[in-house]
């Protein structure tokens, strides 16, 4: 159960290996790596702003909620901030469980909730200057399919 918010890149292989080390009850690890995607109109970098303190708190709450809902042996969320370029890793979410269903569902749950609740904002650089990326309604819909009591906590 680990949360890290950092400027630096991360080593996916090393992180996943550390997650399952010495726990031979784990049957599977599902992970999601989010990358900076190049939008139409050529290369565009972005800067991720966040709310230090609240970010860690929200991620820890999301992670605790996943551990309540599924039987998990280990979870990891790493989210970067600062300036990132197309192809750069932004986020890693990984969940380990005895069974693959729990690993898949909890990992999917974590990234969906993270996208609607973790206080990060993307400032995209384009040829015409910088602009703040608008939230996608699809993210709220994706998160809402997991909704139970947590759904109405969002302000």
């Amino acid at each position, binding site marked *: 159960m680990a949360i890290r918010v950092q400027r630096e890149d991360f080593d996916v292989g090393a992180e996943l290996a550390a997650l399952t080390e010495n726990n031979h009850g784990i049957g599977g690890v599902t992970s999601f790596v989010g990358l900076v995607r190049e939008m139409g109109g050529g290369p565009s970098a972005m800067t*991720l*702003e966040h709310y230090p303190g609240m970010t860690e*708190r929200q991620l820890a709450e999301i992670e605790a909620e996943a551990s309540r809902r599924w039987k998990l042996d280990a979870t990891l969320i790493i989210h970067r901030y600062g300036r990132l370029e197309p192809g750069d890793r932004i986020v890693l979410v990984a969940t380990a469980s005895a069974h693959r269903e729990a690993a898949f569902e909890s990992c999917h749950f974590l990234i969906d909730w993270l996208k609607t609740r973790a206080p990060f904002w993307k400032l995209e650089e384009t040829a015409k200057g910088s602009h703040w990326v608008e939230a996608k309604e699809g993210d709220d819909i994706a998160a809402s399919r997991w909704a139970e009591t947590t759904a109405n906590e969002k*302000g």
Partner: protein
Amino acid sequence: MKLLYFAWLRTKTGVAHEEVAPPEHVRDVASLIEWLPTRGPNFADAFKNTAVVRVAVNQQYARPDHPLKAGDEVALFPPVTGG
């Protein structure tokens, strides 16, 4: 009371964080959101559309009826776009 602004709320207000002593009638999130645009043209512009403003009190998402007190840390920001 400490106010923090993020993303375009920060760039529009021109303020990252500040200490404020709001008038007496500001007692919850809703009344804070009503008061803020009265503080000058940049605030009026930033809080033009309050439907897209999210609020966290002491680092937790808060609803309009959430009460506010002197020592609170109140953050104002647009819908999040991380991940």
